[in-house]
């Protein structure tokens, strides 16, 4: 397991004051995909300052507030694997990260090659880009040959 050694990503476009007063969002929490109209009354980012319309459930309003003040996403990607039954392992983040950091996060993950065996749920990178989210394996890749070393992670390009 490796702690990502790079500078924390600061591209999370955290909102201090809202330039934008009205916006229509698509809720991505569930497949209903409600269209939520978000309107800011006072120009501040507290929940009380917002009015949301169109969400079919409370999760939608929570999402809309988050989206208007600090949009976040998780990503799924993969990394190459050496010595495994499969040539790669699929990965995902444990916590959403700022939308503005998503591309950089993917690039960072692609710098790694992992060595089999890897188990589903293994943390392969801790605290990615200092964003408080771990990268975990989402499937198990067994070692192709018997005598491969135990689960280790190599940082290739550093």
């Amino acid at each position: 397991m490796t702690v990502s050694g790079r500078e924390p990503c600061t591209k999370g476009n955290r909102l201090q004051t809202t330039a934008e007063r009205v916006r229509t969002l698509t809720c991505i929490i569930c497949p209903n995909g409600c269209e939520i109209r978000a309107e800011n009354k006072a120009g501040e980012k507290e929940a009380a300052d917002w009015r949301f319309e169109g969400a079919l459930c409370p999760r939608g309003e929570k999402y809309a507030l988050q989206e208007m003040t600090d949009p976040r996403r998780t990503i799924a990607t993969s990394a190459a694997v050496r010595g495994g039954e499969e040539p790669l392992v699929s990965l995902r983040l444990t916590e959403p990260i700022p939308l503005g950091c998503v591309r950089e996060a993917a690039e960072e993950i692609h710098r790694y090659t992992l060595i089999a065996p890897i188990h589903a749920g293994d943390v392969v990178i801790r605290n990615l880009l200092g964003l408080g989210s771990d990268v975990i394996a989402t499937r198990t890749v067994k070692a192709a040959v018997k005598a491969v070393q135990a689960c280790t992670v190599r940082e290739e390009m550093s």
Partner: protein
Amino acid sequence: MNEKNMQNVRNVDVLIVGGGPAGLAAALRLWEKGIRNILLVEREKRLGGILRQCIHDGFGLARFGESLSGPEYAGRFTEKLEEYGIPFLTDAAVYQITPEKIVTVVTKKGLLTFQTKAVILAMGCRERTQGALAIPGERPAGVFTAGTAQAYMNLYNRMPAREVVILGSGDIGLIMARRLTLEGAHVHAVFEIQPYPSGLARNLQQCLRDYGIPLYLSHTVTEIHGSSRLEGVTVSEVDEHLRPVPGTEQYIACDTLILSAGLIPENELSLEAGVILDPRTKGAVVDEHLQTSVPGIYAAGNVLHVHDLADYVSEEAELLADAVVSGLQENDAQEEKIPIRAGEGIHHTVPQKTGGREPFLLSFRVTRPMQDVEIVVRLADQVLLRKRRKRVVPAEMLRFPIQPFLNAVQKSGEAEVESPSEYRNRAAQESPSGYRNRAAQESPSRHRNRAAQESIPENRNRTEDGMCEENSDRPAQEIVVEIRKIMPDEGFGKEVE
């Protein structure tokens, strides 16, 4: 089949074809209900079905309350399968199913033959390619389906593209637009020939808008350039008849064209077994137990109708397994079924018929996007379901439980008890003349069948507008699912789901 082969025939109670979410959920539920002589057959090296290549998250929200990737979702089921010790074969393809439910399986070591009591079809679907690209002639390298691109990247770790154009706004294409972008490719745009997107709204947001990838509706690819390798495409706007509008052509240089035109159930095996297919779903015609036209052959998951959520696939397969269990125990003769018709605004329904005596889940899709609508399911005058929705789109499969509307199955000798509404319904369908006397002499099941047949003339006179139904090839009794726009003066109350 000759003598020698007969000796090698093994007996299994239930054989499950396909180890995707549908097959896995069915196997687990059967096992949990005590059906142990079962076998799951999967043609790939590993279990999990198409989910193995769907590495993005968003699976399991409905079922596990958390957002899992496809492999993790499948893993929850395969782990349990192994824990229970449920027998399965991989690298083994079902090659034939006969109407007598004899199943032939091809394995690396040769053919295996099974005599079964029930077969569960869970073969999933494949991607639509025909018609996706209405351009004649050779295809240069670099033109492939979204699923193929997904497999390259997520199973074989090969990056198939640099400069990409996507044709079709199906969910897999949208998800691949994001994946390709994060892997460093440049996705120019997604073009959709219809005036509305075919993928889910959340995927338009999180796969396209998040990355600034434009979506052009009413556009299609009209020319492909390049001889051995793709060099570019010409896209054009289309009119309301989906015909390209001259003068709107635009050239885009690219090395990859990804087709995402939707999925189609894989039913070659079903056809050979004598299963009747629904031309709308391209899957089997089933009753409320998800039993096909061949008794003892059942279907669930994408082989039955294309789902957008794996969670619903698993649930459907579990309901199927429950029905198989009761089918094995009771082995009752097929009762008369009432057809379910997709009416105004509805593309198809699953199931397509029901006995009406047990609750079931009705799934359907609408034909076009609509707002402020009312969905009505009715049997002649009787409303079985009425629901209002703010917004419906073809991309989303709608599902509603339907309660029994005829009296529940009676054990012979027991008195029939009907609820007042059932009584009213039945009274409306029956002619009063001497029917009760006759009914008393008949067994309950005969009685039921008869009730369905005898209601013909009565029903004809009972269409909403009081007109006599002219259409003679329509069955006397049918359930109609329809959707209509609510007029502004009707208001749009709080009933929204």
